[in-house]
């Protein structure tokens, strides 16, 4: 059977199964089941589709929320490539085989995925990284090696996938006409991900951004042992956050780390304007000394200062149940609601806030998915950055709660929101405008305190 016929047969079988299991309904449960079957089909079809699925999972602006969150569960694993192929890639990239460029090299991979696989090795001599302490000779490394045929295989599968996007649109899992945009995005992403140096640079930037945080770090990159097809980084000992029991057994305070991890994410979004946009429980490690390491910097979101302020305003709207404020400032992030739709959408978002963020406890996941659904059903286009951000917030809450269930990520956002908006309030023109009233208020505050004491 040819590849195209195989792809068609897998999808037909999976969709048939989805339709039967969901009893031909169009309810949220039926949509979720169809999304699950689509994810299983993508897993079954291998590397090219896994990559496409990963791209779907970071484009809530194009795809329905059910499919986006289902695709985030894709397991990216593939049979390991032969050792000879690994040696060829290392020799081609670094001018010598693994035995020559590393002090030692383990031929057994520790992870094997669609684009690359990872081996451990030992550093031959001391290396001063772009940021952080010197890595001593003998340090353990994680060496990521790109599959020899990764680019070609994925390009072929992505081409075959183009036709399938039309089918997804027909069954309601794909909105609008964003398929072409997705394929263009896929080609760009393919070019970026098949040059591992991009990932290394993002890791360096992250290490620099968090240089003042002793609890958060990124592995140090060894640049003389890296190239487009090989990335040598410090090996991080520890456990992925998705297995919190292991960290707890080692005496790590998981609740403190979960709160700090959420705090670190808010800092990325609201203070630094660069955030890890492909967070996954397997991409965040807890180390035996109680620190958090982010791994896999394939997708990084960026926000300008104005966008960060708008995000802060939207978050303030969410915290205070102020749907009007949240929607008004969403417009600054590109979510443009036609005037005649504003009253109804505001009422709907307020009701959603009451259900998911009210006195019964905050549930960012249901709020985020609900918000994207409301915008979609109102015919409001969601820009890619906004969608990525909502999804990242939902994922961070999921990761933090998988470590400790009572973490409230909205609470962790408060200090950043306060600082960001207060800074804006302190711009000279605004200060001049508000100064007389503020002086009166300050005198009142101090006088009240004096009387009370």
């Amino acid at each position, binding site marked *: 059977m040819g590849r195209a016929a195989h792809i068609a047969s897998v999808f037909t079988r999976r969709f048939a199964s989805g339709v039967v299991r969901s009893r031909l309904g169009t309810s949220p449960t039926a949509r979720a089941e169809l999304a699950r079957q689509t994810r299983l089909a993508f897993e079954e079809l291998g590397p090219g589709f896994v990559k496409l699925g990963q791209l779907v999972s970071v484009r809530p602006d194009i795809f329905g929320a059910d499919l986006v969150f289902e695709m985030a569960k894709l397991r990216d694993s593939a049979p390991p490539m032969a050792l000879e192929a690994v040696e060829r890639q290392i020799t081609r*990239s670094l001018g010598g085989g693994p035995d020559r460029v590393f002090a030692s090299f383990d031929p057994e991979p520790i992870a094997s995925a669609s684009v690359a696989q990872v081996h451990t090795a030992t550093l031959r001599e001391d290396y001063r990284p*772009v940021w952080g302490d010197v890595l001593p000779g003998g340090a353990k490394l994680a060496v990521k090696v790109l599959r020899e045929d990764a680019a070609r295989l994925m390009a072929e599968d992505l081409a075959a996938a183009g036709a399938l996007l039309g089918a997804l649109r027909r069954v309601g899992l794909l909105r609008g006409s964003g398929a072409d945009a997705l394929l263009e995005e896929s080609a760009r992403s393919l070019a970026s991900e098949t040059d591992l140096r991009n990932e290394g640079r993002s890791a360096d*930037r992250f290490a620099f951004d968090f240089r003042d945080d002793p609890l958060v770090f990124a592995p140090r990159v060894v640049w003389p042992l890296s190239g487009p097809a090989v990335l040598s980084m410090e090996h991080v000992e520890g456990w992925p956050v998705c297995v919190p029991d292991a960290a707890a057994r080692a005496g790590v305070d998981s609740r403190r780390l979960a709160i700090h991890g959420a705090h670190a994410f808010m800092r990325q979004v609201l203070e630094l304007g660069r955030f890890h946009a492909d967070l996954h429980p397997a991409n965040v490690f807890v180390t035996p000394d109680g620190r958090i390491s982010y791994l896999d910097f394939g997708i990084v979101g960026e926000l300008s200062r104005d966008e960060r302020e708008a995000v802060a305003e939207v*978050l*303030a709207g969410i915290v205070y149940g102020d749907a009007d404020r949240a929607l008004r400032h969403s417009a600054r992030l590109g979510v443009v609601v036609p005037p005649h739709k504003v009253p109804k959408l505001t009422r709907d978002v307020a009701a959603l806030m009451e259900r998911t963020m009210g006195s019964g406890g905050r549930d960012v996941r249901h709020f985020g998915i609900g918000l994207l659904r409301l915008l979609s059903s109102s015919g409001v286009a969601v820009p890619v950055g906004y969608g990525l951000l909502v999804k990242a917030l939902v994922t961070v809450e999921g990761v933090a709660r998988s470590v400790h269930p009572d973490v409230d990520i909205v609470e962790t956002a*408060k200090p950043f929101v306060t600082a960001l908006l*207060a800074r804006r309030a302190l711009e000279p023109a605004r*200060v001049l405008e508000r100064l007389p009233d503020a002086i009166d208020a300050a005198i009142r505050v101090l006088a009240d*305190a004096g009387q009370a*004491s």
Partner: protein
Amino acid sequence: MTPEEFVRALAAWALVHEVADDGWKAAVARGSDSAAGAGPGPESFVDVLSALVAREKERLKAEIGSEPGGDGAGMGPGQEAIRFEIAELRGRIEALQASVDALASRGQAES
């Protein structure tokens, strides 16, 4: 004077007058607890300003208390950023050097 400089100046003042009165401490607590400029009134403005100044004061205290030495210690944020950009450039050159060496050794092997 930029907003950051204004806050830093207030923070320096607060650091020197470390024993703050209860009114200011209460404003800091309220400001830290509010999500930000949420209220339009002048009291809210004073609260968030107090919280911002308190945070900057703690940052100043940490800066003053830290010993020189180590990675980037004793440098201003601007100097650190320049140092990072240069180091980042060094990383790029080292990776390029590895690729050039690999090409050269491939050429030697083929000839």
